[in-house]
């Protein structure tokens, strides 16, 4: 193959981009959530993974059982005072970079349960990236939150988490 022909074929097949954009694109489209169900919202989280909503369209169908393999912690339900240290441990076990979605009213603010037993918002123990309202939120709400998160991951690029 001549040099001209090579250059011509390369011209049709090469994209130039920045490394940050490439990494952001890769990370954003393969967010693996942790399989961590707490309460009612966990059932809607399962709905998100099944056929009618199908989170696989956004590259997040691989719910991992081990925190070591997960990028995303979906806090799906109310967090009790007894569960809070466990939740923090699970979060600490996840490798960087990692993100947290607080799913539903209970995880975000304590919801209808304003009492001694529950943590009034999971953001008191782990940093939260996206909050979803609803009790429980619809599966589509979770998808929407995932898409918001993907936008943020893509914009973040190679820079470490602030």
């Amino acid at each position, binding site marked *: 193959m001549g040099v001209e022909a090579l250059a011509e074929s390369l011209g049709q097949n090469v994209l130039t981009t920045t490394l940050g954009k490439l990494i952001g694109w890769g990370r954003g489209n393969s967010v693996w959530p942790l399989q961590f169900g707490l309460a009612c919202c966990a059932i809607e989280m399962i709905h998100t993974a099944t056929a009618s909503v199908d989170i696989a369209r956004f590259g997040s169908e691989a719910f991992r059982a081990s925190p070591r393999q997960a990028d995303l912690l979906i806090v799906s339900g109310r967090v009790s*005072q*007894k569960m*809070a240290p466990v939740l923090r441990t699970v979060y600490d076990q996840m490798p960087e970079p990692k993100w947290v979605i607080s799913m539903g009213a209970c995880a975000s*603010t*304590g919801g209808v*349960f*304003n*009492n*001694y*037993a*529950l943590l*009034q918002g999971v953001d008191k123990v782990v940093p939260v990236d996206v909050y979803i309202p609803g009790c429980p939120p619809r599966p589509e709400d979770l998808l929407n939150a995932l898409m918001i998160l993907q936008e943020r991951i893509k914009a973040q690029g190679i820079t470490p988490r602030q």
Partner: protein
Amino acid sequence: MIPETLITEKGVSAGDSWITVGAETVHDALAALREDGYRLLVFLTCVDHLADSSREWPARFEIVYQLRNMESREQIRVRAFIDGDPPRIDSVSDLFPPANWDERETYDMFGVVFDGHPDLTRILMPDDWVGHPLRRDYPVGGEVVEFSEEHATWQTAPEKA
């Protein structure tokens, strides 16, 4: 048949028949009822009658046992009133195995001590929790004004009412 001498009061509330027995004879009374065929303890719980003016209560804590005869489909509720700090009553977990966890829960939530229970420890709250949440003098907790971020944190003792 449960001896009449054990029963201090009996009645019907909204269609449910109930008897009251003395706190010290509750084990005997339940054993007698068990012999009568009331083999299932549906639940066991406690009611705190602190500052309850609906009637005259013999004591602050009322322990409630709901029993059922699965053959004749009859139900009976047994009440026993106790006081003291901590309030004490005999365990019935040797008669009814499901009472084991129910008594642990009642201990956890109301601080009622069940004498003779094999393993009376907290079941729902963390081990180092202070106080017994379902008592009427325990605050509901949480944030009094929502989103004010002012709330009791874990492991602090509740205010004494």
